């Protein structure tokens, strides 16, 4: 540990570590300096100037996010002059900002609004020029609205530093600066992977998911449709936050009851299809392993990762599992097996998915996933959209009596639940693959090596004397770093799990916005959401996908066996190389920074 130094904040002395910024030191001492463009996971931009403080001896105020502490430094964070300067900075941002809070989707959830309130801005002193730009509605998943943008640059840094997609830039200069993809390409034609992390970190509404709530309300009122809904593991672990509850509460039963009240005839659980995915994926892995197929096999559940693969790693397409994602498998068995069982015309089924993800909107529209001329999933709404619909319909999710999912696509194992956390798919696959391969029971089913928030995790299990090396990456930047290892040494791993979002699906682009006193993608929050899923797993008597009785029944009555022709027809897909404008080669040099 380096020697402590003395600084004073607001006339009181404190001993602090050197080699940190004023903001970091102040945070630890309990002084929360207001901030906007700063995010602890991103590089320091120092663009917004909201975090200015007074440092004795300095001519101007300094940005505390970027300025290091030094011995004897005298800092003031709350003088009257500083308060005025900070208020003016926020006022100047507000003056070019649309004055439409009351009709804005982020009303009540907007960092700029919160800052303005905390600065005590109660009148508008300036009338600035307004920015006028068209919304970019071209993407299936992510809407870009430059009028709402305040140029903090968090989205640009998220897209390039954490996700390494490099889709966004700040183009032009000064007042005319606009965040956009290369060549001002529409988002739908750009290299955007639809992961939605730009939405998560945006302080305003400059990025939003494409909203399907109105369309869904309309269809819920259509008496000719059979309304079926599924919801992802991570939705139950996070939706409570949108209702003011603390992070990490499992709201599964309350969510099921609320969805029924919204008007759904059948509420199924995507965790059922997660078990189904494991049956197919573990079988595919074992087949590759035993017949000398392409290894390492890479998971295919994450839709943002699918687009990333097709754009940046077309050479690894043969490595990726042909399994559809759990959402798409659930959609497929809903419109085939379930429809047949209930004697419903599948074309009369409205198949809806509540997802923690924005990229699932893109996935649902992929033509490769269609079967019998139908989409498996007709409408995807995010956790945020679902929370809004539940509130809008006057349903009290917090106090509602919990309910159980419907049959036959509702029962799930603990393995299906942990799909939502990074490493969960690998752990679930190991539980099943081990037992299918060895015919023995896996005693220690909790695979600690693949749990937690480390960017790239490695582990191994021994099956019948054979060592199986596995790796897990979450966030597309980490995924790219891991895949570079694979390119350099294809025999290093046998099986790889990749999730496009930090923390896995619990950190998805469609999850509730950071609440007051929290920040987007806070590690502690991600851990709590993941813990809710691990606790759910622990509490279940069935913890292995192949023990799920309804999955077994589905194979017996419809699919025959994993990888059967019927399974292939409905549960598997293919990928093809895509090269939208903006692609650059991936290699060690272009992947800047270390794994986070």
């Amino acid at each position, binding site marked *: 540990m380096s020697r402590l130094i003395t600084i004073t904040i607001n006339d009181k002395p404190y001993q602090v570590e050197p080699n940190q910024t004023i903001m970091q030191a102040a945070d630890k001492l309990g002084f929360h300096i207001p901030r906007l463009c700063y995010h602890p996971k991103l590089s320091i931009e120092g663009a917004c100037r909201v975090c200015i403080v007074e440092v004795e001896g300095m001519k101007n105020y300094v940005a505390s996010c970027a300025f290091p502490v030094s011995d004897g430094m005298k800092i003031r964070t709350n003088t009257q002059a500083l308060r005025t300067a900070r208020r003016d900075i926020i006022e100047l941002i507000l003056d070019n900002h649309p004055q439409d809070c009351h009709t804005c989707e982020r009303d009540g959830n907007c960092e700029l609004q919160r800052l303005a309130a905390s600065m005590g801005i109660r009148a508008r002193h300036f009338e600035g020029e307004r920015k006028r730009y068209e919304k970019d509605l071209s993407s299936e998943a992510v809407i870009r609205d430059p009028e709402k943008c305040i140029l903090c640059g968090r989205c640009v840094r998220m897209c390039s530093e954490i996700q390494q997609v490099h889709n966004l*830039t700040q183009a032009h200069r000064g007042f005319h600066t606009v965040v956009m993809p290369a060549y*001002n390409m529409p988002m739908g034609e750009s290299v955007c992977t639809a992961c939605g992390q730009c939405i998560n970190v945006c302080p305003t509404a400059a990025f939003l998911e494409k909203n399907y709530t109105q369309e869904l309300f309309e269809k819920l009122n259509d008496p000719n449709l059979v309304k079926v809904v599924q919801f992802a593991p991570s939705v139950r672990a996070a939706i409570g936050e949108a209702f003011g509850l603390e992070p990490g509460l499992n709201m599964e039963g309350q969510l099921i009851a609320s969805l029924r009240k919204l008007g759904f005839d059948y509420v199924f659980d995507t965790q059922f299809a997660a078990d189904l995915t494991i049956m197919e994926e573990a079988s595919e892995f074992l087949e590759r392993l035993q017949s000398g197929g392409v290894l390492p096999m890479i998971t295919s559940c994450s839709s943002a990762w699918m687009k990333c693969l097709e754009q940046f790693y077309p050479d690894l397409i043969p490595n990726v599992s042909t399994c559809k994602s759990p959402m798409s498998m659930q959609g497929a068995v809903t419109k085939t097996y379930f429809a047949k069982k209930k004697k419903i015309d599948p074309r009369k089924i409205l198949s809806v998915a509540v997802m923690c993800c924005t990229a699932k909107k893109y996935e649902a529209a992929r033509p490769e996933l269609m079967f019998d001329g139908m989409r498996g999933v007709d409408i995807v709404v995010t956790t945020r959209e679902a929370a809004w619909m539940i509130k809008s319909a006057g349903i009290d999710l917090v106090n509602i009596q919990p309910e159980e999912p419907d049959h036959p696509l509702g029962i799930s194992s603990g393995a299906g639940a942990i799909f939502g956390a990074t490493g969960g798919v690998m752990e679930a696959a190991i539980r099943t693959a081990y037992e299918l391969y060895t015919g023995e029971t896996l005693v220690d089913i909790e695979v600690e090596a693949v749990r937690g928030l480390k960017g790239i995790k490695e582990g191994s299990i021994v099956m019948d004397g054979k060592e199986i090396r596995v790796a897990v990456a979450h966030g597309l930047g980490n995924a790219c770093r891991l895949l570079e290892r694979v390119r350099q040494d294809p025999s290093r791993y046998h099986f790889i799990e990749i999730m496009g979002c930090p923390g896995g699906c619990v950190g998805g682009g469609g999850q509730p916005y950071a609440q007051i006193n929290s920040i987007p993608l806070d590690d502690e929050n991600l851990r709590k959401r993941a813990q809710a899923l691990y606790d759910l797993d622990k509490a279940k008597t069935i913890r292995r996908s192949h023990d799920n009785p309804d999955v077994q029944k589905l194979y017996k009555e419809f699919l025959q066996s994993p990888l059967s022709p019927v399974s292939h027809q409905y549960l598997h897909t293919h990928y093809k190389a895509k090269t939208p404008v903006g692609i650059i080669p991936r290699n060690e040099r272009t992947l800047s920074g270390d794994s986070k």
Partner: protein
Amino acid sequence: MTQNQTEKLQAIREAMQAARNDAHPESHLIGILHKVQEVFGYLPREMMDEVAQTLEIPTAHIWGVATFYHYFNLEPIGRHVVSVCMGTACYVKGAASVLETLKKELGVEVGKTTSDGLFTLQEARCLGACGIAPVMMIDEKIYGQLDSKKTVDIINQYRKAAAEEKSAVGAETRRGKP
């Protein structure tokens, strides 16, 4: 593409290969974009893509740089660049009306190129010829003490020269026929 352009493009590609081997290829980006503009008069997308691929710099980043600097043209420019000085001295002497005259005469807004590809209209900040304000610069040549009539006359001279050149080339082509 002319012989000269082909040679210059070859030189750019060599410069890009050298930059690629540098520890910091991105530090060569602006220099290389300058060279591209020298050859093409603007930054064609295909060239920005090629720079991105060769230097392994994200295309979005190149777009950010290309749009940040006013010097870089993102669209093909006309044969003659007309820059109207909007500096203080020219402004008080009526530069705004010179600019209006040009917009009307050429039928384009600032930053745009006429449909015949002959002129690109631009604004400039002080060209250093305040003594003969208001001024405009066409390519490298300064024209001072402008009024509406004089401005139109000068534009017409360029048009006439272009038309004569065209008919001369035409005549030459006709003579060349068997």
